[in-house]
């Protein structure tokens, strides 16, 4: 099968195109997929994470994948971040060290992910931020990763990719999984088979809500993330099934297909110099 993938930006349209790719290729079994990028005239580097998740699902059904007719500028971006080297392309040196390379982690690779982040965030705006903001930025990224570890059931792992834009002082990082998706988890938890993807995302973002049951509480991570993005004047997108959420613009629906698993795209404003401390009257002594 040949699939022509259009321009992929971190927008609803970009995710819609990835969902369409999955929708068309999902029935393939032990066949070949030729992903033709000749009509793709821009590719946001971080979007290699959800594309990687979709392609892993396709490959999992014994399909051979080739990525062909990639325009030179896009080829360069996707070789620099290591994505295309998974598909037989030569690596290209990232001289400016602005990319957070494409990487795939297993669900129990939390410490490998921590090493990745430590290595890759160095020199990408984080040190220029005040210590507190740098710390909270890293916490936010870990929260997204841990959320995928806890909830995704993604047998094929977790896919990470990012890009630092020094002039804009923005750091984009995207974490995607190939798991069950937010809607199914919320449907099972609420015992309500009619919850839509959009409603499930809205539910998950509400502080205190968690599909976790048992003795360990949950429902803090995504709210923390949401509040961080608000204060940092960053951006956040969350996509799962046909639900598309964008901080500031609320929820929307992918119109033609569903994206498997869940993807969170975080854009951090690295020029932020605000304090993320508690108000002074709360101390370690009176927190409990």
């Amino acid at each position: 099968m040949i699939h022509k993938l259009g321009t992929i930006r971190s927008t609803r349209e970009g995710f819609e195109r990835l969902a369409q790719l999955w929708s068309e290729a999902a029935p393939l079994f032990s066949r070949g997929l030729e992903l033709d990028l000749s009509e793709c005239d821009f590719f946001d580097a971080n979007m290699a994470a959800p594309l990687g998740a979709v392609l892993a699902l396709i490959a999992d059904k014994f399909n051979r994948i080739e990525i062909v007719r990639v325009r030179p500028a896009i080829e360069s971006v996707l070789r620099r971040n290591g994505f295309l080297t998974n598909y037989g392309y030569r690596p290209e040196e990232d001289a400016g060290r602005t990319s957070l390379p494409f990487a795939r982690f297993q669900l129990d690779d939390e410490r490998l992910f921590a090493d990745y982040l430590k290595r890759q965030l160095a020199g990408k705006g984080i040190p220029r931020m005040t210590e507190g903001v740098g710390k909270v930025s890293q916490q936010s990224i870990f929260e997204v990763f841990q959320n995928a570890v806890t909830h995704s059931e993604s047998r094929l792992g977790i896919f990470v990719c990012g890009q630092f834009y020094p002039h804009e002082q923005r750091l984009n990082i995207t974490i995607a999984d190939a798991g069950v998706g937010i809607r199914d988890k919320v449907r099972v938890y609420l015992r309500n088979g009619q919850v839509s993807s959009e409603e499930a995302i809205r539910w998950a973002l509400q502080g205190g809500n968690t599909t976790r049951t048992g003795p360990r509480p949950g429902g803090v991570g995504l709210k923390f993330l949401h509040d961080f993005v608000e204060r940092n004047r960053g951006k956040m997108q969350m996509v799962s099934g046909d639900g598309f959420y964008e901080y500031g613009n609320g929820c929307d629906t992918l119109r033609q297909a569903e994206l498997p698993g869940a993807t969170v795209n975080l854009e951090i404003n690295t020029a932020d110099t605000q304090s993320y401390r508690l108000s002074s009257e709360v101390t370690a002594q009176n927190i409990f």
Partner: protein
Amino acid sequence: MPETITQEIIVRVFDIIGSSLGVSSDDGQKVHDKIAPLLREGQKVSLSFDRIETIISAFLNAAIGQLYGEFPEEKIRELFNVKDMSPEDLALLKRVVDNAKLYFKNRPQFDQAWQEELGREE
């Protein structure tokens, strides 16, 4: 009920998880499993975050949040405290503690309220 033992034991997170990163629920569980038996014996515990660089909510939920399902708030206040935490981490801990109190008190009501808002219960 056992009497409170006045001398405080310092439990060091770094020594339990062997890392400066508290970024997984499983590591949080290890910390919880060290603290909970001490509290059950009425022992005062101070949890030290010395040398811990990054923590996330899932870690704190497992380490500390779940104590609210096992002990009354008053007992936690009386016996437990934290030290060597950065102001940003204290802010996160406050969220976790406030959430844990609600989680163990109001969970069924929360879920019911959402069922009603979604309005299409099966």
